[in-house]
């Protein structure tokens, strides 16, 4: 009964000039033109956006969550990368 399904697309929207595109959800579409049209109709009905990106979900690659500690925890100990690690004389205002 079922035919082949339309591919899944991830939708990214820039809500206003100066901000990043942000992932808002996904949808189905046969091609990129339709994906953009559908994203406009599905995700910007309340003026949520001024620019849309769509990416076929197949092309999104993610790290394996099982490796998350190896990926991300090593940076937790490098607190010297943050400005608050350094003490400066309290008379100095702008640094």
């Amino acid at each position: 009964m079922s035919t082949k399904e339309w591919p899944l697309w991830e939708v990214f929207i820039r809500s206003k000039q100066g901000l990043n595109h942000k992932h808002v959800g996904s949808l189905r579409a046969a091609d990129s033109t339709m994906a953009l049209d559908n994203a406009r109709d599905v995700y910007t009905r309340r003026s949520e956006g001024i620019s849309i990106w769509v990416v076929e979900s197949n092309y999104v690659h993610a790290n394996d969550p099982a490796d998350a500690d190896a990926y991300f925890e090593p940076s937790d100990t490098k607190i010297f990368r943050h400005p608050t690690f350094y003490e400066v004389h309290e008379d100095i205002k702008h640094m």
Partner: protein
Amino acid sequence: MKVLETTDLEQKFQDKIDREVKIEPNDWMPDAYRKTLIRQMSQHAHSEIVGMLPEANWITRAPNLRRKAVLLAKVQDEAGHGLYLYSATETLGADREATIDDLHSGKAKYSSIFNYPALSWADIGAIGWLVDGAAIMNQVALCRCSYGPYARAMVKICKEESFHQRQGYELLTTLAQGAPEQKELAQDALNRFWWPALMMFGPNDDESPNSAQSMRWKIKRLTNDELRQNFIDATVPQAELIGLKVPDENLKWNEETGHYDFTPINWDEFWQVVNGNGPCNKQRVDARRKAKEEGMWVREAALAFAEKRKKKLTA
């Protein structure tokens, strides 16, 4: 050894939940958690889509153009909400087409309220006020659900849905304050929708075997009975304010509990409707099946066209 590992993973999983860390699609999760979510989220998605039908039935007959536009926008939102929820369900590996086939074969359920007919224009008001009102009670709690994509979809849905209940109440207020014929329409709609709306929260807690596990997993945050009571407490004064009478002779404010007492629900009716014997079950599923079947050549054409163009580009 394997058993130990799984137990260990489950323990870690439960710890995360207890610490209010959201579960994301690729994270390890117990099979039962995944299955429970797929069932609940797809039911929720189906409810949005089937729920379009009773209201859509009145779009072409709306009494004025402003109401027509509002109702169109509202029913359209429901299509959007269904889509957000199907998408969230897809993150668990349940693809939309297969999920929808389960609805059409009768394997998957949807909220039984949509098996009741929308008989008059006032029903559009009652659906917005009571049905969306009941749904919002549930959905606000779900915004804190442990599964990230579901919680995020619910946040978006709640934001959009806040206008639905208001437009329903405003619509009924206009009728309740209008001509006698209009007031009668409003009261009749409340009479028919009150009990089915209360049933939307599901069986009593002691009859709801899966609730405890869902609460532990923080898929559910409040029990069926708690949500139902909250809804009644909030809604009864709204009915009184516009001069409509809630159709329950035993409804009474209880000073001691700080809640309304009400007549026990007729669960026979609930189970009959859930199991396919409501006034509109067949009609609703048939309509959805027909839309899918009649749209098949369109979906095939779009796919064929996309492939042709891709070939042209690479040629």
